[in-house]
């Protein structure tokens, strides 16, 4: 192994990338990390000079959809440069998970980078029955998590499993599945929820940590604000239909063919914070609502128990001043063109107020930045 860790730029050069490719990567990363164009220079400098961060990636109670989503990140160099680095340490992750005979080897790695490595966790940790519901190499997930966390610089909880327990924590939570932040304290934890999170959101979070060596701004639930500060409902291209009271009444009806709002089909867009409406999925091809299905709210805590998925929300936070969408639909259906215009104006006023309120909500107690690592 080489002695001095390579910087990302040096590594890219070794892999045969040109300066131009590298700069393109930096711009892309900056965009993915939610940094304005003027900040790209900072990213470039950081990538040129920062040694690559040691990363450990754990798998506990999960389905590997987060890993799969990550390798779908749209920039070709992400897989080559960043994933490669993570993959390299991922092997050590699995070594850690292989039972206490392998502990010596893991300890060597953890000792060498003590306090320096970034720990990525995919999956929840079962606490019932002393953790026997997830054993790796003869050890419980809980054991492995605690040991590795002790020397980690920061933790990224990938997906809804690690950040809020996800499906296995749904009622009655037979195995006591528990998210990372409820087990560990005294270490910065970044929650990147979603089932899975969008690949570019995952890459963007890692890049932020790599390039700036500090934790991105987080909301009250520990999620990077760059990706989780806006509701699907507020960024949805079908939103004007909601405002105009135009709803799909049944899948595949005439309104569905016109792309009307899916609120009545149970859409969780109004209570879900994610970047689907802005970044979309798989290099911007589409997102669930665009493909005709209601959002199931997969970034939100307990979304599995907030069902059934096809029963529409009776009301949702921040909309107390409005009637439910049902009544909006009925009223608007009956009014004249002038009425429609009036509604549009009042909706816009309401919308501004609502956005303000929702921002206030996400800045609620505990929402301040959780500081640098």
């Amino acid at each position, binding site marked *: *192994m*080489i002695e001095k860790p*390579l910087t990302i730029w040096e590594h890219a050069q070794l*892999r*045969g990338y040109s300066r131009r490719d590298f700069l393109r990567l930096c711009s892309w990363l900056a965009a993915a990390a939610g940094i304005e164009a003027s900040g790209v220079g900072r990213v470039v400098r950081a990538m040129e000079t920062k040694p690559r961060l040691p990363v450990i990636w754990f*798998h*506990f*109670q999960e*389905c*590997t*959809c*987060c*890993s*799969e989503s990550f390798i*779908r990140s749209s920039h070709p160099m992400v*897989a080559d440069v960043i994933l490669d680095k993570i*993959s*390299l340490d991922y*092997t050590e992750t*699995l070594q850690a*998970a*292989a*039972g206490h*005979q392998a502990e010596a080897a893991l300890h060597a790695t953890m000792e060498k980078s003590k306090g320096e490595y970034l720990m990525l966790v995919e999956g929840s940790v079962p606490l019932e029955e*002393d953790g*026997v*519901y*997830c*054993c*790796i*190499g*003869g*050890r419980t997930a809980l054991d492995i998590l605690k040991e590795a966390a002790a020397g980690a610089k920061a933790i990224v909880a990938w997906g809804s499993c690690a950040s809020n327990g996800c*499906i*296995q924590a*749904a*009622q*009655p939570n*037979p*195995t006591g*599945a528990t998210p990372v932040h409820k087990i560990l304290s005294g270490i910065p934890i970044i929650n990147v929820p979603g*089932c899975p999170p969008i690949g570019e959101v995952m890459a963007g979070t890692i890049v932020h940590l790599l390039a700036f060596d500090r934790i991105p701004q987080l909301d009250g639930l520990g999620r990077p604000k760059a990706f989780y500060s806006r509701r699907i409902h507020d960024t949805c291209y079908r939103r004007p239909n909601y405002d105009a009271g135009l709803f799909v009444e*049944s*899948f*595949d*009806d005439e309104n569905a*063919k*016109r*792309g009307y709002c899916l609120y009545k089909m149970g859409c969780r867009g109004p209570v879900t914070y994610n970047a689907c409406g802005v970044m979309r*999925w*798989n*290099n911007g091809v*589409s997102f*669930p609502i665009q*493909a*005709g299905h209601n959002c*199931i709210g997969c970034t939100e805590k307990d979304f599995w128990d907030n069902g*059934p*998925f*096809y029963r529409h929300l009776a009301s949702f936070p921040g909309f107390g001043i409005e009637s439910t969408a049902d009544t909006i639909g009925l009223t608007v259906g009956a009014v004249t063109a002038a009425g429609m215009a009036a509604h549009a104006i009042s909706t816009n006023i309401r919308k501004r107020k609502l956005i303000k309120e929702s921002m206030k909500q996400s800045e609620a107690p505990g929402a301040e930045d959780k500081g640098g690592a």
Partner: protein
Amino acid sequence: MPSRIVVDPITRIEGHLRIEAEVKNGKIVDAYSSGTMVRGFEIILKGRDPRDAWAFTERACGVCTTVHALASVRAVEDALDITIPPNAELVRNLMFCAQYMQDHVVHFYHLHALDWVDVVSALKADPKKTCEIAQSISSWPKSSPKYFADVQKRLAAFVQSGQLGIFANGYWGHPAFKLPAEVNLLGTAHYLEALEWQKEIVKIHTIFGGKNPHPNYLVGGAPCAVNIDDSNALNAERLAYVGRLLEEAKEFVEKVYIPDLLAVASFYKDWGAVGSGLPNYLAYGDLPVHGYRDVAQYKFPRGAILNRDLSTVHEVNGKDTEEIQEYIAHSWYEYSTGDDSGKHPWDGETQLRYTGPKPPYEHLNVDQKYSWLKTPRWKGHPMEVGPLARMLVAYASGREEVQEAVNSALSHLNVPVTALFSTLGRTAARGLETQLIATWALEFYHQLLANIKNGDSRMFDNSKWEPSTWPREAKGVGLSEAPRGALAHWIVINDGKIENYQLVVPSTWNASPRDTQGQRSAYEAALIGTPVSDPDQPLELLRTIHSFDPCIACAVHLYDEKGKYIHQINTF
């Protein structure tokens, strides 16, 4: 005295897999397969809306995403007697085909190829000769000497950096590697190309289901409404996009994957005699062309083969409570009817009861219970499921397309038909079915376009959407073929809610522990006889394990009989 090898973890789609094997005189003489993680899906599903079940079960696996959603909507539609519109069937088939192509190509290049391709040896290759080989087996355009020289240059810089990353497998130079350096260079180049390609094909899921992994499904049809005159629905642009992705995928499969597979296989014909395992094969069949209920018209036929007798294909009925049963004699569950009894999934029980050693532990007590996987049996027989089972059932059912593909591969490699029942056979069958699927996908696509042109844009049947239209009690089964093999969900609905739900997944068939009578399942059986010539470099063992298609992040750790750590194997 055999030495005990512990292989843990093999991180897999359903969670975490551990294998304990006994080695004597350089060969595996016995093996035990254990699933060491459980989430309790079946318990969680009780009492929920059956229309939501697809979303829950889809999360069983993010690698072969979509397959559980498909089995789930079929189970509910079967229970409620819902017939989906032809277009919805076609959309589901297209999503199925996209999943197969992505999954199988990634398996070949990123999980399995490193068992056969010596990446470091590619440094010694003559790019001109690699070019000649490439052009002799395929018309794929990226085949110039310059192209391969560039890949080699990148590889050299990469190796010199000391950071092997995903290639840090460590067996380079192992005597079991048989490929000439030039073929290794070809494989390495295509390894990189395939990594980029896999991001593209899944966009078919994004177009029809909104995202990948875990696209959306819908009981009663597909959620993507068609309107060729509107920008907010499945329109001409979206459909053309799907067509382009399918054409590109077919080209990649035919010009890269299949020629590579045959080229690599021709150097490893002896692996047609290793890893044979169980003599019984089961396929539920899939890809309906005339509705889910018309099983005879499926592209992949349904059936079972016993004792490698290809002259008889046995009928399989998922609803016959005597046929498919799950046992827990060696699984950490308990049954109200006694742990030696078998249960058809409609009567299935999921009562977790861990009786294994207290962690941390060195060894499982393999005489007792040792896994979170139950043990499914078909009429009491242990069955192998997966691409080989599908190809054999189709071959024995007289499907000409499949017979031609199989015979042509056998004659190309000049190996006997018995070579199918092996580690090599499994790997080859996976490629052959991908080739067929690449062609079938375009048939489905053109059929979808034709339907829409003819004025049929229906995607969903809402006649039984409302629970008020359902019978008070209903039972259904959704049978499917996941890339890794036969997959089925069984549902019992009572009063509009799920009363019982059971999943029997491919890995349950293949990776399960022994049954009540001590019969081994597929993994345990196939490992017997697999050589382990060098315990520090157990490449051969990996080949057999990987021929069943373990997942994206597979690591195998070996220990000797005293529990001393011997070696670690990493792929990807």
